[in-house]
Structure formats: structure tokens, C-alpha cells
């Protein structure tokens, strides 16, 4: 039976490598490497965004949480959807209009300072790595469990694959792997939901009644996981602010030709991914009913195997051909999900290292296109090696902490800086630096002394530090600007930044022609 699973895995792998080969032949410029050429349609980018955002954490994590803890799992899921409202109305269009390849481009455009760019890069890299490691570890565990390949080998395999995808296929490969995987996730989710619904006579209430009578009313109540009354709010804040600070999500908005397509692609995403998140709640409850919480806990105490076990059960149960095939398909999709996300993270991190640090800060922009592309490709090798190293170290660690940490850092160190750069006249480079530092230190520090790391003896009571660390990040950025010297030139420049952010064009009579390399005005855009 393991052989069958292995075969399906190989099939999935083959598809992704095929996509990469096709993409590699079309990746000849930095624009193609970082932004897939910038010509994606709203539907394509929306589906890719959905594929990016419907991560293994959603697929396995949300379903597991719902299966074990009822309503708290549903709160997690809906939070992931609401998270895109701030992106839609605040960040996506200005980002698309003012940056070129990375999030730090936007900060650098506003501040005209390599220090500001570096601070933003630091925040981006911490977030990307914190997001990347649990993906690697998750893949390692999944493959070991379902195909039998040892954890260490799986980590090396995933790390190598992500380097291959991105070094050769760049953002084009990443986009299409995300799209394919997104479609597969929606299909498998729909199958599980419809199958479950069918078993209850297409009456959703029946499912709720079933788990209620099986586990008691306490199961469907809130607070089974988010035990502190402020936990739910902190979680919500994490999603709402942190998503808009995740580089691998934000760079997707560079793949479309203009701001209007960007905003339309978000609507696509919200319906596609939102539907999926709603499905995770039903799937989780279904798993709780059919597989049983005890079995789910036995397979993995964090509940991550709820969905695969449900698939196996519906297919006929453990040991049956139907069960094994269904399980193998689910596992292969989960694996592809992880690959798609790590590919996106690699493109984002490559942008930070090659485009931000090497091309802009170190070389001041004086690098040929081909050299830029070469550095970008080679940086993925370094990122892959780092990812493998960290993934090996992470074995046995509670990787759920890292996922929380990633979004928390994004909410506390990245989001305040992005928003203040785009909307606050008085923001200075000093504010960027202090904002990133305070945001980073507070989110990391509070996570380390919180329940996720210290358990019941935690000093800090919330699983998610964002409720405290995000305001601290804002405070750090604001105070850093107010307490330092005023940047009169920057304040005069703000109106032009605002003009560019809202219209996508440069203001007329723009007095500051700008000679620094950070002045990202040479915006490569496809001709309308």
C-alpha cells in the first residue's frame, strides 16, 4: 500500500517538475523571475493567491483544530478570510504602484534610504524563515508518516525541490504550481464536504447534531483552544494585520499589470480561499464524528491528521484500497501545497537578498539585468540550504509556535512600517528602524514566554502576542519618527509618494528627479 502512495506522490512531483520545465523556458529576465512578467489576469492571480494562502496550515491545521476543538477551529478559518480586507483597501494597490519586485522597494521608495530598506529586509527575512521552517518540518513529518521516507531525507528532498522550482522557474513556476495546487485543494475539499453532506441527507445541521450528541455541548462552544478570553481577539488581530505584512503574499501583487487587476484578483481570492476555509470547519467536524477525536489525537496530538484520516475513512477505512488511494491523494496534495508555499517564500526571500540587499544596497543599482538574474537564481540555493538546515534542526520542535510567530512578526514589525510609509507624512527612516526593532523584539520575546513555548507556566498569557506586540510595533515606529530629527525633504516628498501610490503615475512637476539607487521610478511595466 505504501507503494501506491509513493506512486501518487511521484505523479504529483512529476506534474510540478513539468510546470517548472515549462516555466524555465519562459524565464529570461528579472521581471519574469520575480513577477512572472507582470501580466497575470485577475482570475489567474486570484487563484494563485488562493493557492498560496490555502497552506498546509489551513488544509491540515484548521481542520484539525475544528475536529478537536469545535468553534475555535472555525474562528481561525474565518480569520484567514477577513485578513484580506486590510490588504484590499489599504495595501495592495499602493504596493503595486510604488514597488518593483519586493516589499522593501515600497519602503525604500518612500524613505529614499538604504538603511530603511535594510530594516525592512530584516523584517521580511525573519518572517519568511519563520514561515518556511514549519512548512519544511510539516513536509518532513507528512512524508515520513505516509510514504515512509525518513524525516531527514524528506527535508533534503523538499529543500532541493524548492530550489529547483525557483532557480529555474522563478515566479512563473511558483504561480502555476500554486494555481494547480489551489484547484486540487478546492476539488478535494468539495469532495469531502459533499460526501459528508450526503451522509447527512444534505442537511448541515445534522452534522452539528451528531458531534453535539457524541461529545456534548461543550465541544461546539468557544474557548476549547483559545482559553484566554483575549486569545480570540489576538488571533483575529494577528490575521488582520499580519497577512498584510507577509512578503510572499504581497509580492503576488506585482504579477498583475495594474492596481485595478490587483484589487479584482483579491476578490477572486476571497471567494476561492474563503469557500475553502468554510469547508475546513465542516471537514473538521466530520472528522470528529466519523474518525473520532481519540483516533485523531492518537495519530497526531496537534490534530494535523484529521483530514487525511477522514479521507481514508470515507474511502473505505484503513487497509482498504479505496481508503489508501484517497489517503494517498490527500497526502500528495498536502505535499504539493507545502511545495507551492515554500516556492513562494523562496521567491520572496530571493527578492530580499538579491534585489534588495545585493542590487540596491550593496551595488547601488549598478548591476546588469543578466547579472541580477544570475544573483537571484543563486540566492535560491543559499535559501534552500538554510531551509534544509533549519528544517533538520526543527525536528521535534513545536512548529506551531513558528507559524504563530511568523504572522505575529509580520503584524508587529512589517505591517506598521508598510502602512506608515504609505499613509503618514511624518514617518522617518529612524521610525522604520525603531518600528522594525520594537516589533521584532516584542513579538519574538512575548512568543517565547507565552503558552506555546512555556505551557501552563507561561509568563505571558496569550498564545498570540500580536495584541500587545503590534501596538508596540506601531508605537516604536511612531515614536522613532517623532523623537528623532524631522525629515523635511521626506515630508515634502510624501505628497508625491501619495500621488504615485494612488494613481500609479508620477506627479507632474516632480522636483526630485532622484539619483539614488533607491529611487525606484524605473518601473518596468508592460505597455498598456
Amino acid at each position, binding site marked *: 500500500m505504501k507503494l501506491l502512495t509513493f506512486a501518487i506522490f511521484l505523479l504529483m512531483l512529476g506534474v510540478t517538475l513539468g510546470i517548472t520545465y515549462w516555466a524555465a523556458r519562459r524565464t529570461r529576465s528579472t521581471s519574469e523571475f520575480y513577477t512572472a512578467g507582470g501580466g497575470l489576469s485577475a482570475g489567474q492571480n486570484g487563484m494563485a493567491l488562493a493557492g498560496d494562502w490555502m497552506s498546509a496550515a489551513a488544509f491540515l491545521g484548521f481542520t484539525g483544530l475544528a475536529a478537536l476543538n469545535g*468553534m*475555535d477551529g*472555525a*474562528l481561525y478559518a*474565518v*480569520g484567514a*478570510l*477577513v485578513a*484580506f*480586507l*486590510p490588504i*484590499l*483597501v*489599504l495595501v495592495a494597490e499602493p504596493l503595486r504602484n510604488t514597488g518593483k519586485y519586493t516589499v522593501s522597494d515600497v519602503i525604500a521608495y518612500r524613505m529614499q534610504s538604504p538603511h530603511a530598506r535594510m530594516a525592512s529586509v530584516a523584517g521580511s527575512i525573519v518572517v519568511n524563515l519563520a514561515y518556511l521552517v514549519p512548512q519544511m518540518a510539516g513536509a518532513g513529518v507528512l512524508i515520513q508518516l505516509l510514504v515512509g521516507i525518513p524525516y531527514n531525507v524528506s527535508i533534503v528532498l523538499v529543500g532541493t525541490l524548492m530550489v529547483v522550482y525557483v532557480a529555474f522557474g522563478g515566479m512563473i513556476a511558483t504561480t502555476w504550481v500554486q494555481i494547480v495546487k489551489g484547484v486540487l485543494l478546492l476539488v478535494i475539499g468539495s469532495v469531502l464536504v459533499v460526501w459528508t453532506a450526503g451522509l447527512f441527507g444534505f442537511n448541515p*445541521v445534522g452534522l*452539528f*447534531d451528531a*458531534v*453535539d*450528541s457524541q461529545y456534548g*455541548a461543550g465541544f*461546539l*462552544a*468557544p*474557548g476549547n483552544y*483559545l482559553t*484566554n*478570553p483575549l*486569545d*480570540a*481577539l489576538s*488571533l*483575529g488581530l494577528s490575521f*488582520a494585520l499580519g497577512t498584510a505584512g507577509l512578503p510572499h503574499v504581497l509580492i503576488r501583487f506585482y504579477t498583475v499589470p495594474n492596481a*485595478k487587476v490587483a*484589487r*479584482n484578483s*483579491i*476578490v477572486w481570492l*476571497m*471567494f476561492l480561499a*474563503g469557500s475553502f*476555509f*468554510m469547508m475546513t470547519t465542516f471537514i473538521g467536524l466530520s472528522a470528529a464524528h466519523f474518525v473520532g477525536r481519540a483516533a485523531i489525537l492518537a495519530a497526531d496530538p496537534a490534530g494535523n491528521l484529521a483530514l487525511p484520516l477522514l479521507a481514508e475513512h470515507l474511502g473505505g477505512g484503513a487497509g482498504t484500497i479505496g481508503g489508501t488511494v484517497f489517503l494517498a491523494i490527500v497526502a500528495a496534495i498536502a505535499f504539493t501545497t507545502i511545495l507551492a508555499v515554500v516556492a513562494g517564500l523562496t521567491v520572496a526571500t530571493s527578492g530580499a537578498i538579491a534585489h534588495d540587499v545585493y542590487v540596491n544596497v550593496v551595488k547601488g543599482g549598478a548591476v546588469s539585468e543578466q547579472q541580477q538574474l544570475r544573483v537571484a537564481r543563486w540566492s535560491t540555493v543559499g535559501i534552500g540550504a538554510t531551509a534544509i538546515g533549519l528544517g533538520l534542526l526543527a525536528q521535534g520542535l513545536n512548529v506551531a509556535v513558528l507559524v504563530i510567530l511568523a504572522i505575529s512578526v509580520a503584524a508587529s514589525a512589517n505591517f506598521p512600517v508598510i502602512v506608515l510609509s504609505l499613509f503618514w507624512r511624518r514617518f522617518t527612516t529612524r521610525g522604520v528602524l525603531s518600528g522594525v526593532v520594537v516589533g521584532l523584539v516584542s513579538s519574538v520575546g512575548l512568543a517565547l514566554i507565552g503558552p506555546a513555548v512555556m505551557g501552563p507556566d507561561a509568563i505571558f498569557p496569550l498564545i498570540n502576542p500580536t495584541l500587545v506586540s503590534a501596538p508596540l510595533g506601531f508605537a516604536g515606529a511612531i515614536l522613532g519618527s517623532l523623537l528623532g530629527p524631522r525629515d523635511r525633504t521626506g515630508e515634502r516628498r510624501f*505628497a*508625491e509618494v*501619495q*500621488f504615485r501610490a*494612488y*494613481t*500609479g*503615475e*508620477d*506627479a*507632474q*512637476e*516632480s*522636483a526630485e*528627479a532622484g539619483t539614488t539607487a533607491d529611487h525606484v521610478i524605473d518601473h518596468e511595466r508592460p505597455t*498598456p
Partner: protein
Amino acid sequence: MWQTRMERPEDATATPRSIDRPEFRALVRARRTSSRAALVVGLGFYGVVSLLAGYAPALMSRRVVGAVNVGFLLILATYVLTWVVAVVYVRHANRVHDRLTEDVLVSPAGGQPSR
């Protein structure tokens, strides 16, 4: 034009900068209003639901339809509301914001259009 290259901020006799024109201020106002509205409604509702989950678990557990309780219905409402807010905002943006942006960019006063 060479005149614009030499312009200094104190040089108020130059042609009106596009950033000062009323069309642009109108665009900024419109965008600020609609984003504020979308966030207050969308995030506000979700925030209330999160607070209720933490501070009013008894209310959230109250059964409404079979074992489906207030909490799950509120979560469903959050999905629907979020979708509605997104669609309304985007339709507004596609109609109003883009028209205002056009007004800004095709500038009759002081200089050639920017595109």
C-alpha cells in the same frame, strides 16, 4: 521641461502641481472614506465576534437550529459580510476611484497629460 527641473518648493508661481489640484484631493478623500468604511464594517464585525467568543461563551453556545449555536451562525455571517464588503468596495473602486484617477491624470491645467 527645463522649467520643472529648476522648480524649488518655494517657487509658488510655477504651474499648479498635480498633487495640489482639487481632483487629486478628491481622489484621496474618496479612497480614505471607502477604506475606512470597509474596515470599520468588516473588521469591526469580526472583532465583535472574537470578543464575544472570549467574553460571552454562554451566549455564543446558545443553540439556535438544532446544535448549531449563535457562535457558528455569527461566523457564517462573518463570511458573508466579508464577501459583501469586498464586492461592494471593489465595485465602488472600479467605478468611482478609477474615474477620479482619470480626472487627475488627464490634466487640462498646466502641462501635458502624464500618459
